[in-house]
């Protein structure tokens, strides 16, 4: 087990989540270092998405603590977590389907816009100048993710692979410190997966964004991550470098099943 290092950006400490009789997470501890790409793997129902939901404030743990940048933030609501600099994408793409791609990505800037929500409605001039400034930033992201051609298309009409990319763009628009990606490559073909891998690596390298992702495709996980944590039945069963985790007997058992001879 990896000791908690001092440069940990996020520390999950003994977190447990229970839904009725189901213990979705059980005493899970995890340390995410600043600047790394960590992959969370595990069979279906292992608690990966639950862990992500806990980190992003959608669920609150029944036990344990979460520290982000050294401060405890266990009980914050999702929008407060977002304000701390944690952005996320969802397993089943959650875009604003009726809005254009550009508008979708602009919503990601909401937190970066100054001024109160209520005042903004009454206050025209500065709001407009601000809007242009944010628009310029969003255009950079659009270029970065190579989605110039679809900027005016309503998000709901895009093919799945592109929707995932737009969702990533919206998360990036918030300039997050920590980016949580829930199966960013699910349902994609090989080419789309390669693109997505490249984007994730570029984001990590160019913006220094720390990334935690859930992924099933082992070759992808081994290729892009610095750090891998494996869950099974709500417990962490392995934690280390990709090579360490790949060779771990508990992980192999979880994926292939154990023969009880």
């Amino acid at each position, binding site marked *: 087990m990896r000791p908690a290092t001092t440069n940990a950006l996020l520390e999950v400490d003994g977190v447990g989540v229970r839904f009725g009789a189901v213990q979705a997470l059980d005493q899970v501890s995890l340390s995410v270092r600043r600047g790394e790409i960590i992959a969370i793997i595990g069979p279906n129902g292992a608690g990966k998405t639950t862990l992500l939901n806990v980190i992003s404030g959608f669920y609150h743990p029944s036990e344990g603590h979460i520290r982000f940048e050294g401060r405890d933030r266990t009980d914050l609501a999702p929008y407060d977590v977002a304000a701390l600099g944690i952005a996320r994408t969802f397993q089943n793409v959650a875009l*604003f*389907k009726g809005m254009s791609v550009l*508008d979708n990505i602009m*919503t990601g800037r*909401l937190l970066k*816009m100054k001024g109160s*929500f209520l005042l903004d*409605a009454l206050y025209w001039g500065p709001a407009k100048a601000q809007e242009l400034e944010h628009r310029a930033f969003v255009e950079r992201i659009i270029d970065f993710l190579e989605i110039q051609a679809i900027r005016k298309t309503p998000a709901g009409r895009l093919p799945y692979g592109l929707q995932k990319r737009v969702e990533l763009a919206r998360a990036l628009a*918030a300039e997050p410190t920590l980016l949580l990606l829930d199966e960013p490559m699910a349902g994609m073909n090989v080419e789309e997966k390669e693109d997505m891998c490249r984007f994730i690596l570029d984001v990590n390298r160019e913006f220094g964004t720390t990334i935690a992702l859930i992924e099933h495709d082992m070759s992808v996980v081994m290729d892009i991550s610095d750090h891998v944590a494996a869950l099974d039945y709500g417990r962490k069963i392995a934690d280390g470098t990709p090579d360490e985790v790949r060779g771990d007997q508990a992980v192999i058992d979880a994926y292939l099943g154990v023969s009880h001879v």
Partner: protein
Amino acid sequence: MIDLLYGAFVGPFRDMLTAPTFLAEVLIGGVAAGLMYSLVALGFVLIFKASGVFNFAQGVMVLFSALTLVGLMERGVPVVLALGLTIAVMVALAFAIERVVLRPLVNQEHIILFMATIGLSFFLEGLGEMMWGANVKKLDVGIPDESFKMAGILINKLEMTAAATAAILVGVLAVFFQRTKIGRALRAVADDHEAALSIGIPLRTIWVVVWSVAGIVAIAAGVMWGAKSGVQFSLSLIALKALPVLILGGFTSVPGAIVGGLIIGTGEKIGEVYWGPLVGGAIENWFAYVVALAFLLVRPQGLFGEKIIERV
């Protein structure tokens, strides 16, 4: 038999062509009434979009705001100040509703929130009557209920003012929704709650804002209808007329609420005037519901509503 066919398919159109000024007057009356329906429907749409709650209390909010305004004016408060205070009351109400009704019931079934709004409507009705009394009140906003002629067409001043105000309000709301940061946040919440939370939109603030806006829209509707027919309990029933408008326009569409209101408003006036004699009148009372029923059969999502697709 021939007379009946003539009365249904020929006579009305002949009447329209032979007296175009009268037709114009009927149409203007219809548009004016339609815009007022739109205003009430708009209040529903705003709340439904942002919180998925069908606000049964919207009609009572119309009554409550009108009662508050009249009550204040009866106690000698000048019109402008009374209007400002009424707005303040409706915003305060929005805060209270978020705190007392919505927050404890978040993530409950829609039907539970719907029932909560039924409770809210009884509460508001009672509160309004307790504070301001139950008798019919005359609301005089300083616009005379008289008519003038323009290009040979008789136009009612009050109706014109009401229509113009409704049109301006609708325009302002459209800009608010499309162009401002908070408008974008509102659309985001309407589209996907989870995603909206993940990008840091404070849901509670948004709810307070939509309920406030719905309250202000209710004031506008209350003033218009109140000035026309007095402030009384039946004001809350115009919400019933908004229901067919919503079915026609779609529950989630702002333009739908406007167009739906106009179609219902003009449709029922024209039906009443030209086809009324054929069936012995009173078409105005049921026209909206028959149109709504027809729409439910052919296009249940309404003119502008999101298409209902069930994944199987």
